[in-house]
């Protein structure tokens, strides 16, 4: 049985892409997301056409098994104060790829209370900039407008790829060596901070 357990909270553009880049880890990958795959997600998220209509967490779990032979776990629900402890139980690492400040804050509060490391990943609305930052130095940014959409087309895909790879690098460095490295990701560079 694998000892390490990485819980990805939010498996949209960043979470799904970063998770795929963690398939080499000797760890149990866990996905939490209530949302469903839509056809517009195919251009910016790690989902394939056959997953349209399915819950994102369950679809990612199925894709990892079918395409890569990697077993994972999924919870197709919204993270709330009532279930956060259950969904994140026994986690070695929490990875926040949510798209709203309230969920990020909820996860931060749990992480600090339960003393579980938490890595945040976040991208700007215009797709030109992203952050990978450990919880000790992270404060969630609010949307300009509630429910503001981003990353629905493919125009941000190169930045999402660079940012997701940086998230995966941070996860792997932490699990293998305990290193906690923050980074800024722009259009052309990843900069340690």
């Amino acid at each position, binding site marked *: 049985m694998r000892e390490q357990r990485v819980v990805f909270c939010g498996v949209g553009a960043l979470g799904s892409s970063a998770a795929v880049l963690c398939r080499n880890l000797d760890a149990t990958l866990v996905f939490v997301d209530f949302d469903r795959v839509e056809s517009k997600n195919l251009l910016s998220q790690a989902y394939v056409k056959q997953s349209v209509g399915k819950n994102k967490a369950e679809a990612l779990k199925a894709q990892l098994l079918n395409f890569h032979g990697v077993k994972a776990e999924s919870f197709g629900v919204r993270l709330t104060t009532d279930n956060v402890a259950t969904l994140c139980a026994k986690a070695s690492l929490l990875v926040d790829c949510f798209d709203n400040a309230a969920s990020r804050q909820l996860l931060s509060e749990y992480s600090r209370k339960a003393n579980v490391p938490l890595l945040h990943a976040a991208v*700007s609305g215009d797709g030109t900039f*992203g952050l990978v930052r450990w919880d000790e130095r992270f404060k969630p940014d609010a949307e*300009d407008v509630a429910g503001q959409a981003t990353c629905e087309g493919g125009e941000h895909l190169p930045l999402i790829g660079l940012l997701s790879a940086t998230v995966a690098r941070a996860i792997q460095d932490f699990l293998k060596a305990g290193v906690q490295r923050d980074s800024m990701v722009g259009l052309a560079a990843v900069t340690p901070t």
Partner: protein
Amino acid sequence: MAILNITYQGLSADYGFELDANLSDADVRRVAVEIVRAGNVPGLNLPHLGDDAFAGFVVDRLQGGQRIYLRPKVPFGA
């Protein structure tokens, strides 16, 4: 010497300056417009940058305030 890092339209660059402990976030945004316009930030050449170019940007103060990051908001992930 403190470092102000400015990120704009996907590009980032550093600017060294003597830190004023009373520098507010609004001051950081205003100073950033001035130094970028003046061509003092290598890699960010924007002589016609608007006064409100950094409105809504976030100011992060790390390493005891010796590194200041002026960056776009990052509300998204999923």
